[in-house]
C-alpha cells in the first residue's frame, strides 16, 4: 500500500450481469403460445447483479456448484465475454468497454489459467514455441536471446525442465501440462491471475504440487488471485476471502476463516456440510430439497428459496440484498437478517 496505484482497488465489479440468449436469429424467437404466434426470447441469466471488489495481494475464491455462474464471472473479468450490464474496473479504470487494442497493455497485467490442461495448450506447438509466443508478441523489441532468457527464467521459476522445450504437449502428464500453462501465463509478468478450476482435473498428489506452485508464485511475484473452484477444502487452504455464488447471485462473501467457522447463509451451510470428511464416520449433511433450478426462468425472490428450509413468504417475492454482518461478512438472506435461522 505504498504507491499511487494502490489507492484503487485492483478489481471492482459493479452490478455485473451476463445473460446468454438462447434463441438466436429472428425465426427462433417465434413460438406458438396458446394457438397464437408470439415473439419470445429466452435468456440464461448466468450472472445477476454481482458487485464485489478485490484488494491487491489477496486471493479471492469464487465457489459454487455447476451453473452458478462462477466461470462466467471469470470469463467476464478476463474479457472473454462482454457483460450485458454493469461495469468492471481494473485499477481504477473501466475495462469492459475497451477494444482489443486498448486492452493490450492490460493483457500483460492480467492472465488466466484454465481448468483443462489437456485443452489449454495448443497441441501443435512445442513447449518452447508456446512459451516464446507471448513474450515475443508483447515485447516486440526484445531480441532472440532476450526472449530465450526470459523463457528460461520463467521455466526455472515454475519447475519446467528446460529439456522439455522441444516436445509437444501430448508427451506430458496433466500436472506437467498445468505447470507449463502456468509458466505461459507468467511469461508476461502479470500482477493479477484468474484461475478457473486449475486443479480440478488433476490427481490428488498432483493437485498439491500445482497449489504449492501457485502459492509460491504469489509470494515471489506478489500476485493477486481470483480462484474459481467447487472444492471447498482447497478454498480453506488457498483463499483469503470467499464469495459463494448460487444461480449467478452472491449468497455470502466473507473472510475464509470467518466463513468456515461461522457460515451464515443456509446454502453455504449445506455446501460446507456436504464435503466428505476424512475423520467423521457418519455422513450427516444438510439435505437440500430438489435440485438447482434452471437459470432460464429465475425464481422470483431469493434464488435459493425453492431449496431452502427457512424460506417464507417474503423470500418468495423479495430478492434479499447482501447485508453487512457484525463480523464483516456480507450475507444475502432474509432469514439471517430477521434472525430466524437458529435451529
Amino acid at each position, binding site marked *: 500500500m505504498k504507491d499511487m496505484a494502490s489507492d484503487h482497488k485492483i478489481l471492482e465489479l459493479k452490478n455485473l450481469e451476463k445473460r446468454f440468449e438462447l434463441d438466436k436469429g429472428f425465426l427462433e424467437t417465434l413460438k406458438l403460445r396458446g394457438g397464437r404466434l408470439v415473439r419470445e426470447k429466452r435468456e440464461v441469466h448466468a450472472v445477476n447483479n454481482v458487485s464485489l471488489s478485490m484488494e491487491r495481494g489477496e486471493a479471492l475464491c469464487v465457489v459454487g456448484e455447476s451453473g452458478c455462474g462462477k466461470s462466467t464471472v471469470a470469463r467476464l473479468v478476463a474479457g472473454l465475454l462482454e457483460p450485458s450490464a454493469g461495469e468492471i474496473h481494473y485499477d481504477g479504470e473501466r475495462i469492459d468497454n475497451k477494444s482489443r487494442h486498448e486492452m493490450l497493455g492490460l493483457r500483460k497485467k492480467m492472465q488466466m489459467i484454465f481448468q483443462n490442461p489437456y485443452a489449454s495448450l495448443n497441441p501443435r506447438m512445442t513447449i518452447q514455441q508456446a512459451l516464446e509466443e507471448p513474450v515475443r508478441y508483447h515485447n516486440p523489441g526484445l531480441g532472440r536471446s532476450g526472449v530465450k532468457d526470459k523463457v528460461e527464467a520463467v521455466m526455472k521459476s515454475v519447475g519446467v525442465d528446460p529439456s522439455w522445450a522441444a516436445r509437444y504437449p501430448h508427451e506430458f502428464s496433466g500436472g506437467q501440462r498445468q505447470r507449463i500453462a502456468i509458466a505461459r501465463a507468467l511469461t508476461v509478468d502479470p500482477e493479477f491471475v484468474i484461475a478457473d478450476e486449475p486443479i480440478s482435473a488433476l490427481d490428488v498428489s498432483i493437485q498439491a504440487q500445482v497449489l504449492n506452485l501457485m502459492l509460491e508464485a504469489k509470494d515471489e511475484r506478489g500476485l493477486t488471485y481470483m480462484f474459481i473452484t467447487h472444492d471447498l*477444502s482447497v478454498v*480453506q487452504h488457498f483463499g483469503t476471502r470467499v464469495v459463494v455464488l448460487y444461480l449467478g447471485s452472491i449468497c455470502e462473501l466473507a473472510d475464509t476463516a470467518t466463513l468456515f467457522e461461522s457460515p451464515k447463509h443456509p446454502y453455504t451451510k449445506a*455446501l460446507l456440510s456436504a464435503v466428505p470428511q476424512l475423520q467423521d*464416520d457418519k*455422513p450427516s449433511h444438510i439435505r437440500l430439497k430438489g435440485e438447482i433450478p434452471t437459470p432460464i426462468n429465475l425464481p422470483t425472490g431469493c434464488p435459493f428459496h425453492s431449496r431452502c428450509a427457512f424460506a417464507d413468504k417474503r423470500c418468495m417475492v423479495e430478492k434479499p440484498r447482501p447485508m453487512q454482518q457484525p463480523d464483516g461478512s456480507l450475507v444475502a438472506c432474509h432469514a439471517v437478517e430477521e434472525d430466524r435461522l437458529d435451529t
Partner: protein
Amino acid sequence: MSLLSVRDLSVKFAMRDQTVTALNHISFDLAKGERLGIVGESGAGKSITGFALMNLLSRPGFIDSGSIHFEGEDIVQMSEAQMRTIRGNRMAMIFQDPMVTLNPVLTIGQQMVETLQAHRKLSKAEAEQIAIVKLREVYIPSPEERLGQYPHELSGGMRQRIIIAIALLLDPELIIADEPTTALDVTIQADIMELLLELCQSNKVGLILITHDLGVVSQMTERTLVMYAGRIIEAGRTREIINDPQHPYTQGLINALPQQTLPGQRLKQIPGNMPGLDAVPVGCPFAPRCQFAVDHCRTTLPELVRYGDVEVACHEVNRLHETRTEDQSA
C-alpha cells in the same frame, strides 16, 4: 464363503510394440454385503479392475492370468453367454458420467423394461411395476411420470439416481461403482452417496466403490485397497488406513489433502508423477517418489504382507512405523 474372490489377477494391454501390464497380480476378497473402496490416482489401474471384474475388457486389454471367483464360479473361464447371465443381473455396474450412461433415444421406462426382460420372463406391465418400485426406492418423485421421459429431460443428479435404480433392478449381489459422483456437484454427491450407502445396507448388496476421493471412501466403505501403478500397495479396514496409513504413498495421499495443512502454508506434496504403464521401475514402483526409499527398494519388489491389522507392500514398513511412533512420543 466370500462373494467375490480375486486371485493373482493380471491384466495386460497389447500395445503396438510391447505388452504393458495394467494390473499386476491383484488378490482380494469381498464378503457378502461388504463395502470395499478402491482408491488410487488415474493410471493406478482402479477402473481396469472394475472392468475386469465384469469381464468387460475390450481389445487391446485382456486378462492375462489369475481368477475371479464370483460365488464359487470363475468369471475368467466363463463364455460370453454365461457371463451375460451374471452381468447386470447378479453383478451391476454404475459408471462415472450419468450424462452418457443412459441411451438418449430411449425413455427411462423402455430402458428399465428392456433390462428386466433381458433377464427375466416378465410382461411389460409387470416390468414397469418393478421399475416404479425401484425408482421410488431411490427417491425419484412421481416415478410413473418419469418412465415416459427421456434422459435429457432430467438433471444430472436425477439421472444418476435412475442409473442406480437400473443397477438395482434385478437385485444384484454386487454393485461396482466407478467414480459414481465425480461428475456431480458436492451437494448432489452427498445425496447420492448417502442413498447408495443406505441401499447397500438395507438390501445386503456388496459394493465396490472405485474413487480417487479419500473422503468418500472414508464415509462409504468398510475396507479399502490402495492401488499404485497396477498393484495393491495397501489393504485393510478403511478406518485403519485413514487414521494410520502404513505405506508412504498412502501417507502422502492423505497428507497432500489441503485439510491436513494449516491455511496458507505449503501443502505436503508427493514429488514427481506416477510412472506410465510402459515405464514401471524395477523394485518398488513408488521408490522414485518415496523419500524413505533405500537401495533395497530400488531393486526388489516388495510383496503385500500383513503388518498389524493391514496388509502393506513396503520393505521399510517396520522402520517407518518405529520412527513415527518415536516422533509422536518425543
